[in-house]
């Protein structure tokens, strides 16, 4: 362990891999000191574990109905968080719902920032009419309320989890494009970009190899902070019946079906709501912590 630590914190790394791992180690050291970020990381970690081992963790099958045991309150033996109107175990449904939530998050987190980064860096780097065109398109997307736009897209594409992801991704990229463009504008005129241009590098090479790494931290921070919003939109689409279709255990859908009993059987809607709240909080805390660690302005100190 100590040998590994010495190897990681070696000021003179012997290979590219060691240099990169050493930097990651330093970042990890910084984030470890940030208690809130660690709390966020634990929450997100638990989400991953729960999603990965759902069949083993969940006490019941999330889809099996038992009408003799419907609407049992939390604390009932065998149904820790109670049951819903079809007698399904709410805890098990939340646990399996973590998979769907994570699936949506993962797909959105891969597609939207990639698209945003590409558009933002290209617009910022070239400037002129390229910038004007791309940014007006971005503005058009930004001008719509996100949920409404996602609703419209799903209405066209039809409900379903893939279409929900597509709709969310298509509405989520403009802020990343804005962030990436702003970062690119400050980087574009720097001496190190002038130097690499002077070495004869092509524009795609400069954008991919030199501009994107500078934009990546702010975009990553933005993505983690937005994850809460993505969960909420996915839940909102589910709630409106335009996202995941029943009987799939999706958190938003669960809230929607609990709406009918909100006053008598409050737990049916509250439990998945709590799950959304905790996971959103986790991503927000993690995002805030990452900002301290990854932000180039603070990392230089």
């Amino acid at each position, binding site marked *: 362990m100590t040998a590994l630590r010495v190897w990681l914190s070696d*000021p*003179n*790394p*012997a*290979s*590219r891999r*060691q*240099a990169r791992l050493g*930097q990651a180690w330093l970042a990890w050291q910084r984030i470890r000191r940030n208690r809130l970020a660690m709390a966020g990381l634990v929450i997100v970690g638990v989400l991953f574990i729960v999603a990965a081992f759902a069949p083993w963790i969940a006490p019941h099958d999330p889809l099996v109905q038992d009408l003799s045991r419907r609407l049992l309150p939390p604390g009932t033996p065998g149904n820790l968080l109670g049951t819903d109107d079809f007698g399904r175990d709410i805890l098990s449904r939340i646990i399996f719902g973590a998979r769907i939530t994570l699936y949506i998050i993962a797909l959105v987190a891969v597609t939207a920032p990639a698209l945003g980064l590409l558009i933002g860096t290209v617009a910022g780097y070239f400037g002129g009419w390229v910038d004007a065109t791309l940014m007006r398109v971005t503005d058009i997307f930004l001008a719509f309320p996100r949920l409404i736009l996602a609703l419209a897209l799903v209405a066209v594409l039809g409900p379903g989890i893939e279409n929900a992801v597509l709709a969310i991704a298509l509405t989520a990229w403009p802020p990343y494009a804005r962030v990436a463009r702003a970062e690119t504008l400050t980087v574009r005129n*720097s*001496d*190190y970009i*002038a*130097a*690499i*241009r*002077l*070495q*004869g*590098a*092509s524009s795609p*090479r400069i954008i991919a*190899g*030199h501009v994107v*790494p*500078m934009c990546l931290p702010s975009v990553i921070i933005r993505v983690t902070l937005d994850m809460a919003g993505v969960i909420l939109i996915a839940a909102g689409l589910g709630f409106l019946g335009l996202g995941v279709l029943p009987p799939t255990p999706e958190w938003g859908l669960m809230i929607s079906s609990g709406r009918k009993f909100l006053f008598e059987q409050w737990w049916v809607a509250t439990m998945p709501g709590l799950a959304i709240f905790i996971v959103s909080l986790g991503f927000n805390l993690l995002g805030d912590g990452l900002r301290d660690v990854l932000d*180039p302005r603070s990392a*230089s100190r």
Partner: protein
Amino acid sequence: MSLIEIDNLTVTFRAQGREVRAVEGVSLSVDARESYGLVGESGSGKSTILRAICGMAPVTGGTIRIAGEVLAARRGRAFSTEVQMVFQDPYASLHPRHTIDRTLSEPLAIHGLPGRDTRVVAALTDVGLPPSFRFRYPHQLSGGQRQRVAIARALMLKPKILLLDEPTSALDASVQAEVLNLLSRLRDEQGLTFLMVSHDLAVIDHMCDRIMVLQHGRTVEEISRDDLAGANMKTPYARSLFEASADRMLSGTTEPT
């Protein structure tokens, strides 16, 4: 034939409808293996001339010839093997998220040159840095060490001409001496031609054979090194610059005022 020939160069920036002439009608020629200095205060256009050569400033008049050939509007790959530049601020001229290794091997990758490992190590040794620095990040280096890396990067493609934009003004005096010594040694070893910009007359005098004094984008006077040492300048502006640098004279007169 001169290696660098600049004829009647004019650079005009357009900002908010206004036109600013940063350089106006400057002509100069530098022979191969000669070192030429540009001196002036801020706003004199000295750095803009270097940037114009690199295609990073809007040239609106005049011609720039390198080895007799007029430069094309877009500087191609061939240009980058002829001319390279060292920037003023070593804290801003290295990519903060690339290792030294990446910074130095990037030009080789762009030009598809083989033997990256040996070349990078050789380049580090050339500028007096230990090979163990190879995988460090810029923030793990001091200002002087960063400037050495920047010099190594500029020399990776074996250019003939090195443009030096205040290469030591951000450095401490003792580090400045080391970097100037390094530049002189590399010039001798690799047969380089320097076009150097500085506000420090003493630095320019130490490095260059001929000097041009600039003010407000125009040539004030061209002086040889001997004339500078003998205080034989013709124009009052050049003389006032010289007198402001009087404590940099050889005799080192330091009587308190």
